[in-house]
């Protein structure tokens, strides 16, 4: 390794009795792309915040270019002046302000000026964008930009403050594969300029693509630092989770196939969103739908669930045409939808786990005088907590105290309680770490094996291939290819089809 830029030695931190970090070391060289990886709750964020001067470490030290940081109490500004810039997952941008102002705002505050010189604002924003070879309309409001563009704004803003180390926290969680590639090209440019990057992630494939060295932490402890070239996927998963995870392809039991499919969608159309959508779903199938963000996947799921009225087309259940104009209709026809955004669409986060689960089946819980029976409610909730092994002391605990994986199980439970025949899962493992991901996949497979028809929508082609027997590829609102047997294809092949098609259409 070349010259060392940052060195964290023996950092420990305890929050109300919970040891978040235990004697963790981290070394980043000048111009190095370093990756910090670990499951949710492993202590990644805590470590970043200690480096950034947001939290104070209980013990240990952080040195930048050999000088100790935060010797005299913590101060975020000290880290910033030493050249550390953190780009948080939410990007900390101002949606209502222009691109120019968003980029220059830190610099303006730093110089402690009282007035605003708009010429300087624009010129320094322009300069920062030019440094990474980007061109974005300076007068556009940030709220009108895509997540990927917003990220570029956040990086440019970091550059206005003479960043020497840019820490990116889960930078790729909301952008498409293509945009990830673009982001990586920017990261390489930064590296050329001698800027170090700490890339914090739990998406393994990306980590392999971009990083030079990987520090792995688990349960607040550093479990190793490796040159990326010495690791492979399986080894990394093993080190990260402490166990071996294996996937056998999901094989559809042909005996379950019936003459009339469970669900068939014919000629579904919606202006600006999707067109000419035809597909069927059999009992016991896991049908994967994938494609880039914006390909219309989510919109179709919402159309089937009655949340997005299509302009034309029919939906048939067991051969009978059904009219679904609301989620109530969908539920009564045995359709369930696990939404893409668990936090906003899937859960009442501040409410109890039990209350969240029974919300879909309140009618079943009615007793005398048509009032909800507390006993029935309790039994139903506890039943599901047990069935899906949700880790909680009781059903009365609020959902937001659970980990991502357990929260998603609550959403699953809530829909399984309605006893659906068709279950649409839109991004079932978004933001869930790899260990819990696996158990969610197991639950899904188990449901399919028992005869439920499942549609799984995901960005991650690997996830689709691992778990679905049949795959639909979408691009720009159309189904561009159907793969009858997912065992006959590879991730590269599918990715290739999806992006090629995208480029052709975009170029036309």
């Amino acid at each position, binding site marked *: 390794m070349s010259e060392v830029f940052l060195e964290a030695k023996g950092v420990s931190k305890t929050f109300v009795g919970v040891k978040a970090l235990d004697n963790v070391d981290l070394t980043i060289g000048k111009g190095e792309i370093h990756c910090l990886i670990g499951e949710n709750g492993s202590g990644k964020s805590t470590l970043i915040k200690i480096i950034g001067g947001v939290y104070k470490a209980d013990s240990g030290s952080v040195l930048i270019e050999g000088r100790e940081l935060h010797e005299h109490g913590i101060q975020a500004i000290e880290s910033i002046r030493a050249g550390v810039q953190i780009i948080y997952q939410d990007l900390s941008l101002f949606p209502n302000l222009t691109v120019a102002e968003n980029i220059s705002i830190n610099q303006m505050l730093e110089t402690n000026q009282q007035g605003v010189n708009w010429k300087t604002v624009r010129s320094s924003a322009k300069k920062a964008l030019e440094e990474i070879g980007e061109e974005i309309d300076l007068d556009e409001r940030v709220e009108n930009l895509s997540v990927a563009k917003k990220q570029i704004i956040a990086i440019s803003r970091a550059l206005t403050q003479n960043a020497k180390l840019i820490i990116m926290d889960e930078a790729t969680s909301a952008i498409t594969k293509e945009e990830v590639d673009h982001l990586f090209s920017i990261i390489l440019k930064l590296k050329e300029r001698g800027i170090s990057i700490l890339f914090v992630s739990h998406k393994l494939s990306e980590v392999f693509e971009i990083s030079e060295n990987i520090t792995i932490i688990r349960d607040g402890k550093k479990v190793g630092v490796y040159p990326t070239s010495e690791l492979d996927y399986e080894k990394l998963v093993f080190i990260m989770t402490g166990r071996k995870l294996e996937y056998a392809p999901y094989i559809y039991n042909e005996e379950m196939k019936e003459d009339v499919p469970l669900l068939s969608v014919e000629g579904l159309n919606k202006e600006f969103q999707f067109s000419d959508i035809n597909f069927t779903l059999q009992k016991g199938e896991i049908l994967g739908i994938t494609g880039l963000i914006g390909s219309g996947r989510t*919109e179709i799921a919402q159309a089937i669930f009655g949340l997005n009225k299509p302009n034309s087309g029919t939906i048939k259940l067991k051969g009978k045409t059904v009219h679904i104009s609301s989620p109530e209709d969908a539920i009564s026809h045995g359709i369930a939808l696990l939404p893409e955004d668990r936090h906003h669409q899937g859960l009442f986060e501040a409410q109890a786990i039990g209350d969240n689960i029974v919300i879909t089946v309140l009618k079943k819980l009615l007793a005398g005088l048509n009032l909800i029976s507390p006993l029935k409610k309790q039994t139903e909730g506890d039943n599901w907590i047990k069935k899906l092994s949700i880790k909680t002391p009781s059903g009365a605990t609020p959902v937001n105290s659970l980990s991502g994986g357990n929260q998603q199980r609550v959403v699953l439970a809530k829909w399984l309680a309605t006893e659906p025949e068709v279950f649409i899962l839109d991004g079932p493992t978004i933001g869930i770490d790899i260990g819990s991901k696996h158990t969610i996949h197991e639950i899904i497979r188990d449901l399919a094996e028992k005869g439920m028809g499942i549609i799984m929508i995901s960005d991650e082609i690997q996830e689709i291939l691992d778990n679905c027997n049949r795959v639909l590829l979408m691009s720009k609102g159309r189904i561009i290819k159907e793969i009858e047997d997912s065992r006959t294809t590879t991730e590269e092949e599918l990715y290739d089809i999806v992006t090629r098609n995208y480029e052709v259409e975009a170029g036309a």
Partner: protein
Amino acid sequence: MNLKKLTKKNETYLLLIVIVFSIVINTINPVFMTVENIFDLLRSSSGTAILAIGVFVVLLSGGIDVSCTAIAICGQYIAINVLIASGVDNIVMAFLISISVGLALGAVNAVFISIFNLPTLITTLGTSSLFHGLLLEFVGTKAVNVGNIPDSIKAFGKMNILTIARPDGTEYGLSIFFLILVIVVVVTWLILKFTMIGRGIYAIGGNREAAQRTGYNIRKIQFFTYCYAGLLAGVMGVMHLALIRYSNPNYIVGTELNIIAAVVLGGTRISGGTGTLTGTLIGVALITILQKNLVLIGLSSYWQEFFIGMIIVLGVTITYAQNKINARRKLSIDSV
């Protein structure tokens, strides 16, 4: 500015509504579009506009202030009582007292909101009652009649910055109230556009957490915001007094929702961070035309509320429909 950008702006539609309304009223009663009537409208609405600008700044910062009217009447009623009691007959004094009261009460809001971090709506609802209650209990409940109003205030109410003679030799003019409004508009614009504290108001309204991380002093900005709104309410209090030459401690209070409606109608987002001064002024213009000129077309003043309600519903519908169309367009290009 090109045409395409104009069609996206809320202000454009609002201005169109104002124009259409004016034309309709004018065809029924041509008195409406006379210079005299317009001058009169400007005189009677300048105070409201200043109060609305205070509310606008608070909304921008992501808060809301329903106590502005209570502050205005406190400023006015305390000023007139002090003037009468002390025998000082001076308009500058009246402004000084009213503005000081406004600043002080604004600072009370600011302390609760910025230091104790309380929700703004509940806080200002509370302080509104508190201020008004204290005023009635300790300063008085009796109205001050025109005969007791100091001459300097009456003179100020009649002061014009531009005078035009009527054919019959009498005169009318553009009130000094309008000049005060222009000054307030320019000062507010300068603060919002060219000072770090002004940009901070936009920043905390847009993303409070990010503002904090960036290093903005949120307390300072909020403190400034509520004091500024209080100051403007103080200014309005004296203007209102000079306008109607009568002071009743129960006036002004109760009109805060109309003022907030005017600001929101002008395109300022109630959730904070977005809005323009131009929009606010057009919003006030629309509400004023409805309030003052329905009589001109022969409708009883009871129709006022109906029309104001209608305009608010219509205005919100337009904004909502526009957002929906924009969102649908976006979905087809890039769904995130």
